[in-house]
Each structure stands twice: as C-alpha cells, then as structure tokens.
C-alpha cells in the first residue's frame, strides 16, 4: 500500500496541547514520525530578563498549566541558590506538601487525558473529579485554582490555614481508596491491557542516552528520582520510596509500565503528604502571620555580580532544571540570564522515535503514556 504523511496537529485530539506530530503511515502502520515543536513558544526565558526575581514566579507557574506549583518551586530553589537564602523548615514542609498535592493533581490530569486516548471516557470524569479535591486544597494555599504564585524567595506566601491539615488528611486518605477504584476499572479490563501491554517499548539505556527522566524513566527500572538521588527540601526526612517499576520484557518498558509507575507515584505522594503533615515543625494546626520567621526568611533583592544559581528539581514529568546568572548592580534586581531545562522538551522527540512500527491506533496510547505537556516544552 502506498505510504502517506499525516499531519496530526497542532489541533488534534491526540496532541494534548498545541504541537504537530507528522507520521508517515503504510496502511495502518507507522513507518516514520517527526515531532514539530514551537507552536506556543512564549519566550519565558527572555521575558524573565526584564523582571524582578519575585516577578518571575508567575511566569514559571504558567510554564506547565497542569503542574504550576512544582515549576514555581523549581524556579524558587534556583533563585534561593543565587541569592543565598536560608529557608525556614516549616516553609520547606509546606512546599513539599503543596508540591506533592500538585504532583497528584498533575498525574490525575494525565490519567484523565489518557482514558479518552484509549477510548474510555469514564476514567476521565473520575480522575478530573478527584483532581478537584487537590485543586481545592491548593486553592486554600494560593488563592487560585491553576496558577498559585505561592512560593516566595525565602519561604511561602502564607501559612497553611486553620483546619487545612484535617481536610488534607481526609482527602488524601479518601484518595488512596479512589486509586483502587481506578485500578478496578482499568487494570481488570482486558481491553485496557490489550491496548497498553506490548505497545511502545522503551529501553532504559536509550532513555538515559536521550535524557528522558521522571516516571517515564523509572517505568523502565532505572532508580533515578531527583528527590531520592539528590534530596533537596526535606525529602530525606519524610517516609517514601521512588516509584520504580520492573519491566518484564527485555524490550524495556511499555505503556502499561508507565501507567503503573504513575499510579505507584501517586500512592507515594499520598504517603509523603500524610507523613509530612504529622512532622511539620510548629504544629499543623497553628497559623503564623505572613511575615513570621517560621514562614519566610529575609532575602536580598539584588544578586551579586557574577553569582549563579542552579536547581535540579523533580517535576511531575521529570527533572526540571533552572540556571540563573545574576546581573549585579548593572542589571538591578533582574537576572542577567535565565535558562530552563524542560523534561518534556527532551522526551517528545524521543517519543516520536518510539512509536515507529506500531499502528495508527497506538499513537495516542504511546503519546499519552508519556504525559506530554506542551506549555513547558515550548516555554
């Protein structure tokens, strides 16, 4: 049969964002695939050069619209490295809790988008409904549902509200049962397994060479989690383990492994949150004022000449890295250069290679299993 190129995107149900996947098909079989990115490039790195260190945080919120808290935190750690700020421990715990809530919400968004990819709409409504639980919690902290602008250089914007800890515990404990319901709906469905197992194999060595990180890499059995390998914040004080799957095939991890890795990671985030809310210094039921030294530390507004800041942060989709060069007095309060390493920018071209040899119907199954987010990819 004759071969033809099909352009999927920038507006296509498969893409989960605005980008283009060009696939060459031979009948139903994909023989070549190319990813074309850059459709929603906003130039966040360049914009940041004309903003204060504090003003950059909202832009980092908008890097990934389903995982705002982790990206803002990722920037904040780089800025604190640049400005040499010592963060109070209570603020670190609050950041950990908010980031893990965001991780669960982001993985739920992935699960909700992955259901329609393989044709099941029920899991979409279930996952998005439970995501509301965590968006409500984050709204209590940041005041907004999607873009919180919550972390500050030296701490967080405000303390956890009274009663937050009880609501958090109740919702997380309920959510642990809900994960079982998802597994009853999906893992026990033969059609779901037929669609995912044996599809989209990725080898661990290839992924390490390509620079893929996050749950996609851990699904292939590589125990690399930035929170575990290079613990920042208070991740070495709470009780958890990295979500590493052991793939059963020598071909590597398939879509089902990646699905399992994310479900495992949601459970670990629940475990982490429940442990952290008990260990939080200053008491979970106390509320400190916004400028209390338990919440936020004094931070300089100007970076010294030639100083650099760097952070390596485990975002929901992998290792996100920020590099900031301070401008000194000449640049005022603004950075000289800010550079972002996005995990999905590195992963998406690799996914395009992965799907060669499978059917057209496998394209959304494979693409969705990697959890692409175009906001952070195009920056």
């Amino acid at each position: 049969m004759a071969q033809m190129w099909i352009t999927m995107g920038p507006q296509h149900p498969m893409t989960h964002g605005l980008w283009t996947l060009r696939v060459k098909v031979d009948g139903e079989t994909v023989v070549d695939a190319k990813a074309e990115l850059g459709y929603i490039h906003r130039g966040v790195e360049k914009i940041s050069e004309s903003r204060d260190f504090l003003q950059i945080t909202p832009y980092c919120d908008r890097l990934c619209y389903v995982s705002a808290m982790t990206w803002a935190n990722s920037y904040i750690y780089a800025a604190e490295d640049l400005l040499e700020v010592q963060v109070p421990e209570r603020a670190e715990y609050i950041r950990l809790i908010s980031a893990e809530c965001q991780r669960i919400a982001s993985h739920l968004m992935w699960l909700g988008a992955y259901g329609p990819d393989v044709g099941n709409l029920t899991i979409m409504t279930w996952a998005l409904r439970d995501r509301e639980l965590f968006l409500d919690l984050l709204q209590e902290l940041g005041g907004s549902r999607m873009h919180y602008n919550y972390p500050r250089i030296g701490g967080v914007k405000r303390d956890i509200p009274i009663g937050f800890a009880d609501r958090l515990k109740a919702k997380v404990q309920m959510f642990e049962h809900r994960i079982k319901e998802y597994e009853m709906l999906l893992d026990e469905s033969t059609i779901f397994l037929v669609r995912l197992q044996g599809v989209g194999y990725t080898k661990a060595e290839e992924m390490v060479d390509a620079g893929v990180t996050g749950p996609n890499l851990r699904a292939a059995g590589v125990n690399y989690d930035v929170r575990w390998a290079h613990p920042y914040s208070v991740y070495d004080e709470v009780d958890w383990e990295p979500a590493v799957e052991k793939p059963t095939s020598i071909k590597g991890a398939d879509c089902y492994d990646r699905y399992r890795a994310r479900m495992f990671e949601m459970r670990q985030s629940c475990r982490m949150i429940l442990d952290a809310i008990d260990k939080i210094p200053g008491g979970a039921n106390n509320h400190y004022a916004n400028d209390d030294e338990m919440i936020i530390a004094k931070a300089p507004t100007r970076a010294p000449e030639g100083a650099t800041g760097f952070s390596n942060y485990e975002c929901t989709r992998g290792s996100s890295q920020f590099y900031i060069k301070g401008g000194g007095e000449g640049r005022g309060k603004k950075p000289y250069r800010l550079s972002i390493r996005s995990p999905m920018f590195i992963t998406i071209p690799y996914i395009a290679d992965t799907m060669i040899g499978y059917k057209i119907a496998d394209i959304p199954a494979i693409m969705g299993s990697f959890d692409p987010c175009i906001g952070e990819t195009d920056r």
Partner: protein
Amino acid sequence: MEDVIQIRTWLTTLIGDGLESATADTSLAPHAGDITFFLVTLLSCVMAFALIMLSMFMILWLERKILGRLMDRRGAMTSLRSLWVGENGVTAGEWWKKIPFGLGTPVGAIVAWLNKTAGNRDPKNPTVDRVNNRSWYGLAIFPGFFQNIADGLKFMTKEHMVPSRADKFIFELAPFLVISSTVLILGMIPLSSQIYGANPELSVLFAFAIFGIAPLGVFFAGWASNNKYTLIGGIRSAAQLTAYEIPMLITILGVCVLAGSFNFLEIVHFQHSSGSWFLFLMPLGAVLFLIAMIAEVERIPFDMPEAEAELVEGWWTEYGGMRWGLLFAAEYMRTYAACILFAIFFMGGWHAPFAGLIGRTPYIGGAYLLIPGIVWTLLKAWLIFSFVFVWARAALPRIRTDQILEFGWRMLLPLAFIQLVLVIIYRLYLFDAGSVHDTIEGGWAWNLYGIPFGLPILITVLSCVLFYWLLNDEDPVDTKERMFHVRTLEPAGKHVAGTD
C-alpha cells in the same frame, strides 16, 4: 396468544368494509382488496416509523442519564435515582402523592431511601456535591428529556459545507445510503404481532442484508471526503466488516434453526409457544449477537472507524450541519434496532414474561395480560440498551483494528459455529414438537428426561458457572505478567515499503 392491540386487523376491517361499500358496482370493485392492502401497509409503515422514532428519544435520554451517572462516582444506584432527580437534588416534586388511592406510596418510600443512601448532600462524598453544583433547567418530569430536540435544532441551523476537492456526488450520496438503509431496517422490525411496516416471508434475511449496506456508505463517505482521516476511518470500517458480520449471521442462523423460520413474527411466536426464551437456550449465541451488534453499530469498544483519539472524528470528520446530525441519529437508530432485535430474538419479543403464571393469578392476572405487546418489546429493548450498550461504553476502552480482526476470526467465528451445532442438536433430538401450544401459558417443548423446562434450566446454570469461572480466572495485577504482545514491524530505516 393474541395481542390486545389488533391494529392491523382493525385497519383491514375498517378500510376493507369502507372500500367494499364505496366501490360496489364500480369498475374498482375487483381491486378493493389490493387498495385495502396498500392503504393498510402505508398506514402501518407510518405508524411503525412514528412509534420507533418517537420512542428513540427514550434511548437518547437513557444514554445521557445512565452514562452520566455511571461516569459519576456513585454508579448504578444514582442512575436509578437520576430518573426522577435532576442535578444537585432538584426533583420533579413529589408527584407520587398525586396518584390516587395511595398507589404511589412505595415510590415515595424508594425515593426517600435513595435520597438517604445516595444523596448528593452526603458529607462523606464532598466531590459529588462540589462538582454537581450546577443549576438545572427543564420540564418538571424527565429532566433532560428535551435536550435532544435542542440538539437537533442546533444541527439544523448549521451550515452545510462540502470540502473543495471532495467528490461531491459521492460525498452527498453517502449519508443517504447510511440513513436510508438504517430507516429501512426499522420497517422490517415488528414491535408487536400487529405493529410492523412490512412482513416478508424471509424478513430476518432481508433485515440483515440491509444492515450490511451502511458500511458501504461509510466507505463511500471516507473515500469521497478527500481527507486522510476519513480515508483511514472508511477503510477500517470495510476491514472490520467481515470480522463481525459472519459470526453474527451464523448466530442468527442458529436462532432461525431453533425456531424453524426466517420470519421475525414466527421466531417470537415460537419462543412463546415452545416455552422458553432463546436467551436461556443459547446464552452463548446471545452474547455473540450482542458483541457483533456492538461492532455493527460502531459503538465503544468497537468504534475504530470513528476513533476520535487518533482519527479526529473518523469517517464523518468532514460532515457538518444536519447531515452530521442525521448520521449521528442513524447510529442511534441502528443501536435501537439492534436492541429491538435482541429483544425479538432472545427475549420473547412482545410476549409478557411469565404470562401463564401471573396471568392465572386472580385480580392482577387479567390486568397483566391487558398490557399491550409493544410495551414489552420497548421495555426489553430499553433494558438491553441501558445494561449492555451504555454500560459497555462506560466501562470499556476502544480496541484496535487488528485486534478486532483477530478476535472476530479466531474467537467469535468458532464460537458461533459451536453454537450452531448445539442448536441443531437441540432442535433435532431434544425438541418435543407435540408440546408446542399457542395458549397463554405457552408450551413445554424443552423438557429434559421428564423434568419440566429441563434444557433451558440446565443450559442457564451451566452458562452461569462457566461465566463465574471465567470471571475469576485471571488476575493480571498480581501476576504482573504481560498477557498480550503485539508483533510490530522493524524499527525505522530498516523497513522498505512494498518489500513485505
């Protein structure tokens, strides 16, 4: 057993008598019988189509309600409740109190209990309350029932566009093929012993011949739209056609062998007069028929031709306006036809369940037998739609084209043949032709070694055991073994098109 509504007999008598007296002593007198037949058929067709089209609103409403509630966390319990309770606890009022003699009291009790157990205001389920915080507009009963009319009006106001490089003639022809063939099926399907459009001798064969036309229209539409997605969707439809049509036809052959007829009316009457629904005689056949029918009407999990995840909207991507709306309605008409066909083939059609047992009961028996047959047909069809079609759509992902081909050829087809052989054995060796009775109780033609209704009972029990065993056979989460593998081509660069 005769139906209460003898509409064809009444019409024939009425029109026939009128025409006879009107045409007496004229040159038309010899043709009075033909004209009567023509007029009765015309009126019956209009009546049958009107009844099916009007009752199809129920199908759309049931799907909307039950699917919405299955996708809700509360599951089937709230599905029941939502029949009389709208979103956010808005109800249709306590209408059961208006029913005379306190007959509605049990309904009120059930509503009170459901409100207590599955109410949206349950503090243990904050998300339900949080997300259901929508306002509700609608008429006082059947919330959401008239949404379909609003949808239809919306489609009618949309512009009709033909892609510039499409094959215009074929592009316009394809919806006609799909829709007209779909409507034609409904003319063959009887809703009761007297409500049908036409009743040819081989009506089963005719109906399924028409059922096979629509995929041709789908292929035309996919090809003529000049779009790569529609092309792939159309070819998928053509490719999967044989994989499910052949098992389905062999299953229906089993039904016809068991009933000894290719006629819908006779199949239904045979189920009553022989004493058992075919559901209890050939449950395997019923399951095969349902699977093949879901594939035939292209619903999840077999909706690869439209697979919106990868093919945007499949073969109807380029259609818009009322043509899209009619194609969509045609899909539901086919679904509805499939449900009615299941009710006719396997659930005794318009015959009341336990007509003999309940019909002989004093006081209520007479009232029970007065329920018109069409009510039973529609109730059975709606039941099948709600519990099989909607539930399957809510619970299952979509499978791949190569997987349905493999499934159809390697599992459905052998099973259909096994069912056919079994059915031939039942009919030849276990059927007692002397015990077929066309009374209210029906016959008892399927006794086994003197046990009344021994064969259906034995088959049903064995099937339930088999089903339970298959249900608990696997637990892939615990074993963590890969049950399924797919064979793929060589990686990029190594595969040369046309060489393998």
